[in-house]
């Protein structure tokens, strides 16, 4: 009976999640009515709860632990409150981003429950606090105007905190990432990356003159160097890429972008020869099985998990994901792929891509260059972190030890990602206000053909027109 339910659920969850993922992109269709869109979002919510219920039924049947029922019900209440809060207080926020946020957190909690109930409960506690804290952020972002004036504050804050970690931080897995205050371990780089984006956006909102570029680049380089010294390679890479993207978009100068990337490549090669911890990662990536006893162990185990799971997965509680070192954080994607299946895992990537597209969508729709850059920077950070985390787990790129936002275990990671999502929602609220503001300046360009432009602003993303929805 248990086996039967597990087997059936395996396929059912894949189908439900595939439908959910399909809706993520179906709502972007060009000629969709708001009515239809709303229906699709409701369908998504249905799929989400169905997957969640399905997973917990399987987990309950295979463990017979009554606590799981209570835990499940608490989660249902939690996600329902989140959904209600957004639809009552922030009805102008992006429903798709809210749904994806909840979906990713649900998957995270399901997998963490399977890996270790204790960790899942901890994660859930953090999720409650984080959500309470971040619920105000969309409102603040849409009302307060001084964020663009604090560039020096951001720079000082970022450098000081990063420097403090480099000097005083606790070494874990060969990297200095965190310090502990009052029993809570904090990983400051998770938060500094948001401050960093605000810093760069504020600088380039002021001016994109050469001298401003030099100043900003110097501060940005300092961030990256401190992170590299702390051996936090993943974070250093994320900061670097985010900066290059923002520099390119702010200055419209592809030359900066390309020369920056070239410098990045040279620095990586130098890093390879200078630092053994970089070499170890590359060696493990080249041939993990040959180095199974040492550096290749983690990635080999990850690939055993992904390969053994195949397209349909082993079913919840049927695999051995706990064999992978660090599975709850850096390698949670492998655990998902092993037990829920390769198709499910691909859908997960697509949901993350959907979030990324929504971040870039708002960046394009905003008119204020400060907020455009903020959305772009946050989108880049989010997107690139997905790429590093999943790419490392599947041996597409060398592993950099980065968490999968909203899914992986970890308080700092979860809170900082929720802040990012909340800021983005704030921008969706702001956009609505921009729309309604009277246009003060007269347009300089004269129209060529009148009356044929559609009422809604549209932007092209990847071949499909993306609408302002909601």
């Amino acid at each position, binding site marked *: 009976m248990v*086996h*039967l339910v597990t*087997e*059936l659920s395996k*396929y059912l969850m894949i189908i439900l999640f595939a439908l959910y993922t399909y809706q993520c992109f179906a709502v972007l269709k060009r000629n969709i009515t708001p009515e239809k869109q709303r229906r699709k979002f409701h369908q998504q919510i249905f799929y989400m709860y169905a997957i969640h219920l399905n997973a917990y039924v399987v987990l309950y049947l295979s463990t017979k632990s009554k606590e799981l029922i209570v835990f499940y019900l608490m989660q249902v209440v939690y996600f329902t409150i989140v959904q209600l809060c957004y639809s009552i207080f922030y009805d102008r926020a992006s429903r798709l981003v809210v749904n994806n946020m909840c979906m990713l957190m649900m998957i995270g909690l399901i997998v963490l429950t399977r890996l270790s109930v204790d960790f899942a409960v901890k994660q859930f506690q953090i999720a409650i606090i984080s959500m309470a804290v971040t619920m105000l952020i969309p409102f603040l972002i849409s009302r307060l105007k001084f964020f663009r004036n604090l560039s020096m504050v951001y720079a000082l804050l970022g450098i000081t905190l990063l420097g403090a970690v480099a000097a005083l931080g606790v070494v874990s897995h060969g990297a200095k990432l965190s310090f502990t205050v009052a029993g809570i371990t904090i990983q400051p780089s998770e938060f500094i990356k948001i401050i960093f984006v605000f810093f760069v956006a504020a600088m380039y909102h002021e001016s994109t003159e050469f001298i401003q570029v030099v100043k900003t680049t110097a501060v940005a380089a300092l961030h990256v160097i401190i992170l590299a010294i702390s051996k936090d390679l993943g974070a250093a890479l994320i900061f670097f890429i985010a900066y290059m*993207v923002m520099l*390119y*978009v702010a200055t*419209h100068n592809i030359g900066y972008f390309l020369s920056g990337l070239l410098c990045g490549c040279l620095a990586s090669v130098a890093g390879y020869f200078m630092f053994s911890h970089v070499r170890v990662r590359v060696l493990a990536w080249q041939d993990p*099985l040959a180095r*199974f006893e040492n550096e290749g162990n983690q990635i*080999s185990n990850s*690939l*055993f*998990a*992904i*390969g*053994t799971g*195949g*397209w349909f997965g*082993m079913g919840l509680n049927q*695999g*051995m994901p706990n*064999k992978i070192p660090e599975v709850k954080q850096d390698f949670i994607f492998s655990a998902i792929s092993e037990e829920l299946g*390769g198709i499910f*895992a*691909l859908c997960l*990537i*697509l949901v993350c*891509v959907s979030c*990324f*597209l929504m971040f*870039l969508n708002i960046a*394009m729709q905003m008119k204020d260059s400060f907020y*455009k850059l903020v959305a*772009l920077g946050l989108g*880049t950070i989010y*997107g*690139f972190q*997905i*790429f590093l985390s*999943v*790419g490392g787990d*599947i*041996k*597409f790129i060398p592993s950099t030890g980065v968490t999968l936002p909203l899914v992986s275990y970890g308080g700092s990671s979860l809170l900082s990602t929720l802040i990012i999502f909340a800021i983005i929602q704030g921008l969706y609220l702001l956009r609505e206000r921009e729309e309604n503001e009277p*246009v003060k300046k007269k*347009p*300089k*360009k004269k*129209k060529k053909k*009148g*009356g044929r*432009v559609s*009422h809604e*602003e549209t*932007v*092209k*993303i*990847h071949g499909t027109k993306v609408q302002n929805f909601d």
Partner: protein
Amino acid sequence: MKKQSKSTERKSKTSTNKNKNREFVTITYMFVGMFILMMGYFAYFQVFKSEDFINSPYNTRQDKFGEHVIRGSILSADGKTLAETIVDDDGSETRYYPYGNMFAHAVGYDCNGKSGIESMANFNLLRSHAFFLEQIVNGLKDEKNPGDNVITTLNYSLQEAAYNALGDDNGAIVALDPTTGKILAWVSKPDFNPNTIAADWNDIVSQTDGENSVLVNRVSQGLYPPGSTFKILTTLEYIRENPNYADYTYDCKGSITEGETEIHCYDNSVHGTEDLKKSFAKSCNSSYANIGLMLDKTSFAKLCDTLLFNKAIPSVYPSQKSSFVLNENSDTSATMQTAIGQGQTLVTPLHMALITSAIANDGVLMKPYVIDHTENYKGISVKEYQPSTYGTLLDSKEAKTMQEFMSYVVSDGTGSKLNGQSYQAAGKTGSAEYSNVKGESHAWFTGYASTKEKGSIVVTVIVEGGGAGSSVAVPIAKQVFDAYFNN
């Protein structure tokens, strides 16, 4: 009118936004491209690369599959079932080996840690590629899926001939196809009964010490002094150093003395005046000790390294590294001993077979393999294993010379028992002394034979304490050749 002006504003706003957004679109495309590549790699990994990882012996997930799959069968190339799982009415499973000891080391056992093909194909056997709807139905009925079958390259009649030819002696026989690397026969004695090994395990482990254990797969794990079979390597080195090797002559008086070292020919035979080819064919120790003294030891060591000494040889079974320790500081005695295959040199029978295989295949070594393909329980192929080249160990001219020399061994030398058959045979015999007691030696033969119709086959034989290679090992090899070509 008002309406139109509003639409003008919209239009211009949209177009400036579009210009402003060009870089945003570039970045979006870039990231989407990265994600598509990554997802493509994920799919590529699942379809093409995942087998390499799931089949790894490090992958402890394998046994989990046994909970839902009935282990598949192992078959010989000619369709005989070598191992199968029998399910009783009450659902209990027994692994059954119809030929008992005959395939013990080749097929291995499926308990106490696993060995042989049972170990290397563990995952293939525990996976089911039955039609997926059937699998879903089985899953719902809580019934196990039938696992995939493994079809080996092993030839039943050849294995039987080799197994019987070795008789009650300890030793090893390996036969492979030099043009593909297919392992055709793999016999190691002493052996065990895989049907009762679980029950016998404690006896096996307690009664025998490490090296002599029946569990040692002597073909790839047994290290033996190569004896005169090593003269293949000494000859190669001499040919490389002396392009005019055909001019070599030596007058054999039955022994050679250099300093305090005296080396005798086998049975103290006196071979008289001989060139290199005849020295090889007659396996003249005096002549080869003499050659050994002329060789550049550094270059000799290099040659042995390229012929896979002191390194892991390509082997699908667990294998030992052969060792060759001669260097420029070695003394006269060690040099003379090494040149005739005594001294400290140690080889595995598989290694000897691979060297022979490279010679027979004009210098190119094919990687040995024993799994030909896997198929689902209905016989639909799942994965085919193709022959693959390990590398070129010798240039083809050297290989041709060695072929000529080894043919001469059969026509005019120690391998004459193979002369005048329906097939063309070539090889080298050896009698490797392994203790201080004179006359106690392992009997060696390594060689190959071919006909136009059936291609070629390499056979390497070692009989522990068997005596002379020419009288003990050659007849055993002959039985294997006969079984291959005359059936």
